[in-house]
């Protein structure tokens, strides 16, 4: 009997996977699916009204590349993410965030006004860079995001 209940729960839980793809989240499954449902419902409503169909970004995939991890996202990370790389901040880092977006990591060598020494620094850290899709709400905060530590 108990086993049957558990099996039922598992099947019920698997029914949610179609709605909300597995993503690392602190949310309970039920809450997540409710949100997904509301999002789709509101999406349909928005499509009817013609209002903005945009939805808040929750659990942004590129979060680990904004300065907290070992790799830094050239397109979205704030200038201070380069503080951990000696030689980068502020000159080279400033040039990176003032330009872009970059379609690949190799694009950074095309920044106008880079000296050969600065290119050497970029070469040194090339493996630590990634170029993810620019996300407008992070791009606008690349130079000054208002966090001063």
């Amino acid at each position, binding site marked *: 009997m108990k086993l049957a209940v558990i099996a039922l729960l598992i099947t019920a839980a698997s029914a949610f996977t179609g709605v909300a793809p597995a993503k690392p989240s602190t949310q309970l499954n039920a809450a997540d699916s409710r949100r997904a449902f509301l999002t789709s419902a509101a999406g349909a409503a928005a499509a009817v009204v013609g209002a903005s169909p945009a939805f*808040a970004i929750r659990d942004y995939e590129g979060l680990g590349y904004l300065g907290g991890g070992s790799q830094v996202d050239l397109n979205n990370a704030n200038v201070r993410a380069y503080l951990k790389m000696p030689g980068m901040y502020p000159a080279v880092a400033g040039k990176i965030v003032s330009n872009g977006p970059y379609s690949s990591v190799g694009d950074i060598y095309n920044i106008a006004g880079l000296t050969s020494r600065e290119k050497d620094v970029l070469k040194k850290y090339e493996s630590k860079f990634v170029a993810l899709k620019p996300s407008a709400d992070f791009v*606008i905060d690349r130079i000054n995001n*208002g966090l001063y530590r």
Partner: protein
Amino acid sequence: MKFLLVSTLLATAGAFSPVTPQIRPSTSLSASKSDAFAATALATVLAAGAMAQPAQAITKSEINQLSYLQVKGTGLANRCPEVVGEGSITPKSGQKLVDMCIEPKAWAVEEEVGSRGATERKFVTSKVMTRQTYTLDGIEGDITGGSNVVFTEKEGIDYAATTVQMPGGERVPFLFTVKNLVAKGNGPAFKPGFQMGGAFKTPSYRTGLFLDPKGRGGTTGYDMAVALPGLQSGVDGDDAMFKENNKTFDITDGKIEFEVNKVNTEEQEIGGVFVATQLSDTDMGSKVPKKILTKGIFYARVDTPV
């Protein structure tokens, strides 16, 4: 028809004559209290006098001669310089437009006017609530020469958070901006009558790190209202508050048209009027934005990079 409308708007914008605030000679550090009172009284008289006086042009070279203390507190930093002369400048590709200043002088908000059955959308003149910080300045970008000059905005103080108040008392915040502007001209040279215009992007009034009073934000903060957990549990959940909880970063389109009416060939300066339309703040996705119309004057200088 559209072009006619734009030219009419530009013509009305042309009615704005330069307003020159009285420049006071610095705030004295050693002023005693009574001196300060006298100075205030004098300043008031001067300000009143300045309003009564006919408008007087203050050019970029005159502004450049002023010290910080001479400008501080006068509101002059919120004015665009005037251009003297009616010459002509034919820009070449590779040259830049620098020190561009865009000063709105009148604001209007689109509103549904009239009783039911016969409503129409109309721009209602609104009063600016922002003090002396609504002018864009130091904007620069590349010029492409040829049969039609094209200006591409690159950087500068290209946004200013502004609030206007509609006649009914409703306040409408908006991010006055010309970000990513690409303005196409109607001729090869800047001369009186030259027009250029194009589309720009208006980013969200608030950026990702802004937290609302309930601790919710775009790229940071909580997903739901911290102060109201009871409202957001149960079957309906945050249905009622979805709009407020769903923080988005909305980027909308705007349009601006410039008309040059003064050109100083010697200083390579151009000046004129503009009309711009854009959308107001959406409060991070929870409100329907209103359409804003701004009219005013602009200044720019053609620069040849060495």
